[in-house]
């Protein structure tokens, strides 16, 4: 079943008298349970695409259907609700609330969802915190966590609302190789348990942990192919262990 369906999607930015064609007519679909990486050179339109997929932005033209809803025609409030109910974001720079506990950071999306009571909020948050392996840290604030741990909190926050898809924009961009692999191992675990993920990255080794890669150049798709999926946990164990300098 297709979670995301885009059709001849275009996005133009008008800067002064110039028009930047960031996306020049893109079509593809993502099925439930897929782990897709989106690759491409800097400026090729990856973030622009992800913003539209995440309902933070609307296309200049073309269709974007997420979970059966055409998002190209929704109002700002409706887009906010779609983001809340159907999408989980993971950003390069974590974006946790400062001086706020892990638990509260993870609960945050549910605060904007009337269907959750305070108790349900707490239960759901505890459950996803457990899934990312931070049970021992629920009362720590982000300043007391490493980069990798912060990104785990961000992943828990993305998971907490039971989204149909997780969108990650260079989620390992700020992390060293070992921590990146640990995060990828976590993503693979989530994927194995049925989560659909779209993952923007520059790095081919990161992309090799996904199951399908879409390559962009100048706003066009130049390649869309399945990947020989590598096991992140295995890659992690294969890393030289004497990195203790």
């Amino acid at each position, binding site marked *: 079943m297709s979670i995301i369906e885009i059709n001849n999607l275009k996005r133009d930015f008008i800067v002064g008298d110039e028009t930047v064609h960031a996306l020049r007519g893109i079509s593809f679909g993502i099925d439930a349970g897929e782990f897709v990486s989106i690759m491409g050179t800097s400026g090729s339109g990856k973030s622009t695409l992800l913003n539209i997929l995440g309902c*933070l932005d609307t296309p200049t033209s073309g269709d974007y259907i997420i979970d059966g809803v055409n998002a190209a025609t929704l109002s*700002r409030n409706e887009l*906010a609700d779609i*983001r809340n109910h159907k999408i989980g974001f993971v950003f390069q720079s974590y974006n946790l609330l*400062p001086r706020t506990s892990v638990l509260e950071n993870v609960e945050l999306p549910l*605060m*904007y969802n009337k269907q959750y009571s305070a108790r349900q909020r707490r239960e759901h948050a505890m459950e996803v915190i457990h899934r990312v392996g931070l049970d021992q840290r629920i009362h720590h604030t982000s300043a007391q966590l490493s980069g990798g741990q912060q990104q785990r909190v961000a992943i828990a926050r993305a998971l907490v*609302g039971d989204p149909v898809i997780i969108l990650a924009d260079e989620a390992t961009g700020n992390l060293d190789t070992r921590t990146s692999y640990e995060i990828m191992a976590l993503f693979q675990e989530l994927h194995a348990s049925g989560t659909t993920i779209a993952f923007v990255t520059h790095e081919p080794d990161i992309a090799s942990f996904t199951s399908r890669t879409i390559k962009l150049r100048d706003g066009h798709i130049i390649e869309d192919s399945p990947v020989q999926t590598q096991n992140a946990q295995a890659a992690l164990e294969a890393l030289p262990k004497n990195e203790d300098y």
Partner: protein
Amino acid sequence: MNLSNLLKIALRAILRNKTRALLTMLGIIIGISAVITMLSLGEGVKLGMTSEFSSMGTNSIMVMPARQQRGGVDMGNSTSKSLDEKDLAALKKSCPHVAAFSPSVTSGAQMVYGSRNHSGSVQGCSPAYLSINNYSLERGLMFTDQDVKVYSKVCVIGKTIVDELFPDGTNPVGQTIRFGNIPMKVIGVLKEKGQGSFGNDADDIALVPYTTVQKRFLGINYFQMLEASAVSQEASEAAATEITHTLRATHGIGNPDDDDFEVRTMDELLTSMNSMMSMLTLLLTAIASISLIVGGIGIMNIMYVTVTERTREIGLRMAIGARQRDILLQFLLESVVLSLIGGLIGILLGILLSYVLATAIQSGGDMPISFVLSYSAIGLSFVVCVAVGVFFGWYPAKKAAGLDPIQAIRYE
């Protein structure tokens, strides 16, 4: 996001920057405490004056002879003799809204008892003077209409005179005091009124039948003044009108411009005094509330800073599903809470300040004032604080809610 969660966020954000919040609130604190102080003191003075006046009788009326202007020509002092027995008789007959009349004639006198003396004035009046001026007797009796009829040499004296002439505690009733060279028997002592109203000592008084003052002290047959009391404070105006009409009739005056007397009611005086106080209070409050505007601008300024500082947070909240309204409310509530906390501190400070000032003025003694907690001022302050918070928080909150999530989340 529900209100209690928004409130929690607002409080946490404020507590995170305690010093900044306190400095921001300063304008509100000063403004509100100044307004509370002004309104409380204003109300206190009003109350103090009212009780001062009511001790003199809030329904009392004075009729004074006035200079007559005829065709622009001043007719001189002759008209000050315009009130006499004939007027009194007519007035007593035709003024149903008046409870009592008392003519008033005064004369300075040296009072002597034994080796002690006291210089004061004798107040010539009728027995009704007591009720008109809210005096009551401590001991003895008031003189009667019969005493008035026969110019009796009797007097009723106040506490000050008692203290001056009878320092050893002798009962003055039954004793004889000489007023100049006229011996007068003391038949009563007035109960102490206590307060000096605007500097005069209400207890430095000797009441004597007015006829006695007219015949034995001054040798006149007119009244210097007529005092009266209306049946109630509300009836004051009607009573004054009746008096005016009656006197015009007895004096044969057709044109009100020719009036040779003047009628003043305490009610009128109170009303004008009150409206003057209200104006003054309003003016001072208006000045004080300028500080509220300054405080509001301070809040607006800090809210803009807060919104800019927290651009990324706003972007994130939007990305995870906050609607514009959620963001607007979050920041609006923060500014309202900021303003309300300032207001609360201001109210407490204002109460303290008005208490201290009222007590200080009271002990100074020149001004009748009482400490009143102006509940309306406190209620008003709350409303004003919310209004200031909403008004000055609106644009910063609107700016926050209008941010583009993509740009906000990447904001450095």
